[in-house]
């Protein structure tokens, strides 16, 4: 029976798809644990750095000699959006949601009359953004084939941003990345890198945000060391959060795919058995009516 054979082939193919998706799920689950530990370990440092920078930016506001990395260069005409995505797909909406977030932000800024440039960290983000903003992607970075991102990678990206900033390629820089909330939830987040966001939260106020710091060595020298370090730390945080989120998203996506494949196999097997039985019944009727006719 042609119909039966087609069904059998179909079931086999869904079964092998299911094997692949469930293997991918297991791989992601084991990678996730490591990535999650890294992401969580990077948080305290980044948070405290951020807190310190926020107070610094608040106290430097209005000081014309403050370094541009801290307070910006006074203009807001050109925005750089750095989108952090994964290098591989098959992770549900993980990459697309960053692409969409970056696109929405870019459109909004353009509507406000700003000039927008983009940078893509991760192959998927580059491919997504190239469709709409092909000529405005000024650089892209990919970690394809690497086991995990290192702090040195973040430092390299930070250095690149600083050089671009000094050459006047952009005035404001925003990072768009997936924040790892839990295995099933990654939230696209916008974080401003340059200029550093000013402390506005009342919590910071209470803990002495108004305090004017003394510096040792002198302010200029210290900030020259501190600001690039901060930039690298914030980028590193985004990279490891995104890496953990990617594994979480892939695990969830592959879990769903495995379950869907299971449902499909069940349905196809039912169809297969039904038509097999129908065939047998029909043959029996043919034999019996043939025998009666004799």
């Amino acid at each position: 029976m042609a119909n039966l054979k087609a069904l059998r082939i179909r079931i086999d193919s869904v079964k092998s798809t299911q094997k692949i998706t469930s293997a991918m799920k297991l791989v992601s689950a084991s990678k996730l644990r490591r990535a999650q530990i890294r992401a969580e370990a990077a948080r305290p440092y980044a948070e405290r750095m951020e807190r310190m920078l926020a107070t610094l930016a608040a106290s430097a506001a209005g000081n014309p000699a403050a370094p541009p990395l801290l307070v910006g260069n006074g203009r807001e005409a050109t925005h750089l959006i750095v989108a952090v995505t994964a290098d591989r797909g098959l992770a549900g909406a993980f990459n697309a949601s960053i692409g969409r977030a970056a696109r929405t932000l870019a459109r909004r800024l353009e509507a406000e009359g700003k000039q927008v440039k983009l940078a893509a960290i991760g192959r998927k983000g580059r491919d997504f953004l190239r469709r709409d903003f092909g000529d405005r992607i000024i650089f892209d970075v990919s970690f394809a084939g690497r086991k995990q991102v290192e702090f040195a990678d973040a430092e390299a990206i930070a250095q690149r941003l600083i050089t671009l900033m000094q050459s006047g390629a952009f005035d404001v820089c925003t990072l768009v990345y997936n924040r790892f909330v839990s295995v099933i939830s990654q939230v696209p987040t916008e974080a401003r890198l340059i200029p550093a966001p000013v402390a506005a939260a009342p919590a910071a106020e209470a803990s002495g945000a108004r305090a004017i710091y003394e510096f040792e060595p002198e302010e200029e020298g210290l900030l020259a060391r501190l600001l690039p370090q901060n930039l690298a730390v914030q980028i590193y945080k985004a990279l490891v959060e995104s890496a953990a989120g990617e594994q979480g998203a892939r695990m969830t996506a592959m879990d769903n795919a495995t379950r869907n494949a299971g449902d499909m196999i069940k349905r196809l097997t039912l169809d297969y058995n039904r038509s097999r039985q129908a065939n047998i019944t029909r043959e029996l009727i043919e034999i019996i009516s043939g025998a009666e006719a004799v």
Partner: protein
Amino acid sequence: MPTALEIVSPERLLLSREVDMVVVPGSEGDIGVLPGHAPMIVLLRGGLIRIFEGAKETSRMFVAGGFAEITTTRCTVLASEVSPLAEISKSAAERRINEAEAAYAAVDKADVAARDATLDHLQSARAMREVAEAP
């Protein structure tokens, strides 16, 4: 009122507790932080962080460099690398000194920022050996 001390490195939060005094190795000399210290941001050199509770020194850690934020109520050490004294070995320090010396020899002396960075690494590595040798 004690000072809330936190020591973090990019990899982990090493310590977070209340102490009576902490001495951090500032780039221009050690700084003792007592409650009510004037707010400061300090660049750190490689050296020892010493923690005092009561009049007694209760623990020591090696920090390879970084920053410290001091306010009247807390002291936050943002270290590039930090480890308890027990985890420091002389052989690792020697290896690091050799690497740092090679980097310093190779660096372009006209590039002030790069030269200073390698010098800092060298100083930090030497401080690590000193710490490892100390009883």
